[in-house]
């Protein structure tokens, strides 16, 4: 069983939902990358989504784009990100890590080389934002061969036929993007999410994570009530952006711990 499936099994057994923080690797600098990952786990993260910085993050809002720009400014490459995961794995063998990013850095490395290196580093799943199912065949085949999970997005505009095709390809969990827009935009429509989740469950037999527009513990708790996992990104990236360097880990840790506590209450 993959680390991701094992994590969801364990959570199900204890009646809890997964908290999945997203941060951009290399933001604000390379030296902070691994300490941030450990801080997230210590604060209650069940899975880490690690953003691979890209120069043109079309599906992200200004907050995560700035994080990408900061990470690129200090020269963070996909190779570096894989290095962060390797280093993280020397102290943590249980928390799944999902790489989330755009196609071009992955293609520049080469799909085969990338998936082999990702497996070696201890990566558990990969989400390439601009690979919809139609264009992802080559990557999913490579990931499957290495026992890595293929994470896919579903959106409010995804129809049932597409849910079914995503259901066939996806492994690990699926990520429901709960609003129309880019990351960090507006806030979430709980009623809409509550209506959509049962529809997705008909076609996708995997845990469903919900993200985009979740900014506090209360919303996280509401989402946890109707889904299997809560993804929080922009709010954490904002904390990284606004924290003085020496307070970064403490601030991020207490923010995530607070969300965890409210979510589980």
């Amino acid at each position, binding site marked *: 069983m993959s680390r991701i499936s094992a994590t969801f099994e364990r959570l199900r057994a204890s009646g809890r939902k997964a908290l999945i923080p997203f941060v951009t690797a290399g933001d604000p600098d390379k030296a902070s990358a691994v300490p941030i990952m450990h801080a997230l786990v210590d604060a209650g993260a069940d899975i880490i989504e690690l953003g691979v910085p890209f120069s043109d993050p079309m599906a992200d809002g200004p907050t995560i784009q700035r994080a990408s720009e900061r990470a690129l400014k200090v020269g963070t490459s996909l190779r570096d990100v894989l290095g962060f995961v390797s280093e993280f794995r020397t102290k943590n063998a249980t928390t799944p890590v999902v790489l989330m990013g755009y196609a071009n850095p992955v*293609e520049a490395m080469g799909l085969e080389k990338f998936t082999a290196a990702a497996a070696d580093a201890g990566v558990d799943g990969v989400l390439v934002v601009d690979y*919809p199912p139609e*264009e992802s065949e080559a990557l999913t085949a490579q990931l499957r061969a290495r026992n890595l999970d293929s994470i*896919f997005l579903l959106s409010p505009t995804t129809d049932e036929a*597409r849910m079914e095709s995503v259901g066939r390809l996806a492994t690990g969990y699926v990520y429901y*993007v709960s609003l129309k*827009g880019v990351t960090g935009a507006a806030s979430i429509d709980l009623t809409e999410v509550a209506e959509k989740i049962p529809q997705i469950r008909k076609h996708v037999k995997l845990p469903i994570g919900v993200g985009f527009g979740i900014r506090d513990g209360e919303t996280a708790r509401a989402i946890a009530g109707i889904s299997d996992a809560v993804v929080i990104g922009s709010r954490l990236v904002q904390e990284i952006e606004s924290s003085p360097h020496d307070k970064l880990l403490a601030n991020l840790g207490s923010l995530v711990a607070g969300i965890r506590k409210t979510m589980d209450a």
Partner: protein
Amino acid sequence: MQMHDLPDSKGHFGPYGGVFVAETLIHALDELRTTYESLRADPDFVAEFEYELKHYVGRPSPVYFAKRLTEKCGGAQIWLKREDLNHTGAHKINNTMGQALVARRMGKKRIIAETGAGQHGVASATVAARFGMECIVYMGIEDVHRQAQNVYRMKLLGATVVPVESGSRTLKDALNEAMRDWVTNVEGTFYIIGTVAGPHPYPMMVRDFNAVVGRELLTQMPETIGRQPDAILACVGGGSNAMGAFHPYIPHEEVRLIGVEAGGFGIATGKHAATLCAGRPGVLHGNRTYLMQDENGQIIETHSISAGLDYPGVGPEHAWLKDTGRAEYVSITDEEALEAFHLMCRLEGIIPALESSHAVAHAMKMARDMSKDKVLLVNLSGRGDKDMNTVATHSGLTL
């Protein structure tokens, strides 16, 4: 499937093109593709488009023999397809008119567009005014400064220009920002992409609307000189004017198709925008194509004296035409383009766009080594009124 009939049903031109976007945009693209596929075969829609091209855009645009420029080069004849004479001063309006008509059929009342030089922004603002639609134009703040006149022109036409301060603050960032607007406001908004790039169906649709240029040439050249030209030359940034001229000629293998990219300070300096000449395939802005990128797959900043060619990607059909050898791609430096610009002004009384000047410059280079019975047809994609400040600054003048 013949090369001329591409893309396939999923938007692929060989290994290029496709739909590389986040799930949030898939529905909108499906809707657009379905609508456009039915409209392109609908005689009423085609007639409406042709009516607007004739009476509003001012088509057909003439072909013109550049006699004094030809004499100056002393070789092959240089002919010009006068897209600079279109309403708004460039080929861009062929496409914006077509897409505005599609938007109307889809009941969308809000138009968004990205722009580099400002020509596509002006052409979008123009058709939005013509049809009473709201228009938002995203423009890199660097370009807002470089193209102040076009910014004002868009405002006069009732559009809102949004300066983009992210990334390299040029065309590619304006495109990112327009995509973000679209994904957020997808229901009532139509995104008019200005070149033959982006996710399917854009590369096909933008090509189809610009292909009026090549179709006119197919009849105009035999009428004027009794045969087809030996080569067609066009500048290539994203590649819409070139694709429009090239596409109807793909089956006419006796006609060479030559795309001229922006060589900037020279390919060897790395400061250029000659994507097909010096880039590598990758994925950006919804399609697979040649890109200017570093070894880690990050998109790198390009340079060209002409804002309209200053783009790190290129239309996927050009990538395929390059790989198959049906079209050739070359580059012309800033200096060479400027020289051609000045010669065109003085010898022909035509002030060309700096973009189009690249194609003129390469035609001049070629003509010198060719006999006088050969014919080079340059797609003069736009006029240079917008470039007065750039050219003056380069000559050390302030207007």
